[in-house]
């Protein structure tokens, strides 16, 4: 660990006079409606927005959209798929997934981002080995901008 000590000592000797840490505002005054912004940004970065099917059959809607898909791996209750993520033990086993179905914990309007962690994926490689990703998004889960995404939730 002498390396560590040497680097830290060198930095302490080198550090310029301390500068203050600025406060970061949320920049959320007059934000346009989140859903509108989300749809615009999504189009900009190449994603496709699809309204939920009127009859509520998400499974059928996904099959209709990806008629040639062999493997549909689902990590959500609403869609059964052809493979359940609960049955996948190893990240490599997802190499042949055509469509992955996930539910993000939240989304960000500004950048059309969706948040997916190991809690949502269960097996992380699902999001990256699959050829297509279908995300079921609750409209109430869209925050306005990235500052909201990275601020710890304020309890009231």
């Amino acid at each position, binding site marked *: 660990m002498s390396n*560590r000590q040497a680097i830290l000592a060198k930095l302490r000797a080198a550090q310029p006079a*301390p*500068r203050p*840490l*600025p406060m970061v505002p949320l920049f959320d005054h007059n934000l346009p409606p989140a859903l509108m912004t989300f749809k615009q940004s999504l189009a900009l*970065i190449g994603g496709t927005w699809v309204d939920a099917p009127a009859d509520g059959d998400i499974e059928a809607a996904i099959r209709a959209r990806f008629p040639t898909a062999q493997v549909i791996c689902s990590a959500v209750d609403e869609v059964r798929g052809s493979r359940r993520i609960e049955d996948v033990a190893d990240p*490599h086993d997802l190499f042949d997934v055509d469509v992955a179905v996930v539910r993000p914990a939240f989304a960000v309007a500004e950048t059309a981002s969706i948040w997916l962690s190991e809690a949502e994926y269960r097996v992380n490689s699902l999001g990256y080995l699959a050829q297509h990703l279908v995300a079921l998004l609750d409209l109430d889960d869209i925050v306005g901008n990235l*500052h909201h995404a990275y601020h710890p939730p304020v309890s009231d």
Partner: protein
Amino acid sequence: MKRVDHVKASRNFIADEKHIEFHDKRLWGLRTSRDAAAHGIPEWEALRTLASGIKEHTLTHLADYLEEFERNAINNGVVVHWAADAEEHNRIVHEILSKRGAKSLVKSKSMLTEECGMREYLEARGILVVETDLGERIQQLDDEKPSHIVVPAVHKLAVDVADVFARKLGTDPNNSDVYYLADAQRQTTRPLILNADAGMTGCNFAIAETGGITVCTNEGNADLSANVPPLHIASIGIEKLIPKLEHLGVFVRMLSRSALGSPITQYTSHFRGPRVGGEMHYVLVDNGRSERLAMDDFWYSLKCIRCGACMNTCPVYRRSGGLSYGGVYSGPIGAIINPTYDLKKYSALPFASTMNGSCTNVCPVRINIHEQIYKWRQIIAERHELPFVKKEAMKAAGKVLANPKLYRAAMKTANGALATLPRAFIYNPFNAWGKQREVPASPKYTFRDWYLKRNKAK
């Protein structure tokens, strides 16, 4: 170390009109997209000030934040290593791999591992290293350094890529369709990822408060490298620290907008600890950063978040290509970072600038790049590292410019001479300016003549 001759090195690149035209337009296109994205955010300038402030605060408390980061990372189950220099970084990575019998490593793009020459080091020790970023893979297959920190193969046309892929991946040499080429890279890289023993990523932001790191990519290749193999190693430059998670909002909002003009990278990935059954290692690398932190005028360059905006906007970079800078970092940021490693070798780079200041104006963390370029020029002149012709020309110019009478006489003579002298005399070997371009037609009379005449007429 041999001195890099930027002008000479850029000559090859300039010789091919098609390349330079594409390069110039493509990068200016990125700059234009960056402007549109920045103008869409009313608080853009406030964000730049915040980003600069957060980075300056962190750098002036860097040792404390590194300790906090390490503490939290260890609590999350990450193994933390410290490397004083490139050699140590490479040795640590090799040790981690060889202890586990790992023979292949898939990695995402990392300027730090370029800086350390890690690929060459590991390959010499029998490890297969695969770059998974498309541009970086093209450069690896062509045995060239990245020419840009965000778009590593931007100096190549599709036909150049077709040529490289035909030689290395067996594609059709006459097919330069970009979808065909990208798909060939994808199909050949995917099995390498699935069979890799270990994965590596760089780090865009390391968060002291959480001990986590954030990696920004557009191809999902960092996520594949980190999430498929059982072992994830992240190489982290110590200047990547930021104090809190909430600060990510500021930087992530600006990074891709500054780089490509897109609101965010396609993948913004947050790694905090090993997954079940997996292993995660951080290698914290100094490699000259602590020395730079001690340099009064130059420590600000440590704020850099590697967006490449200064390169895209720089007329010299756009018309000379990244490879001509002869270092890991090119463009305006390269002109101020590379000399901190080796002043003699990179003494030509601070002169690869028109001093227009555009780099400073687009920098999302407000690094005073053009001022630092100017300061490097002063240091290089003081240390007598200027080439003879430049030195003598500057001496003469200094004398003439300091004396109004001499200046006026020289201007009259020069203007008269330009009109009457033969080409060979004007475009002589000492006129570096006239090598790639025409000297503009001289005006009929000088500004001073015009001014005096105008005042007389009143």
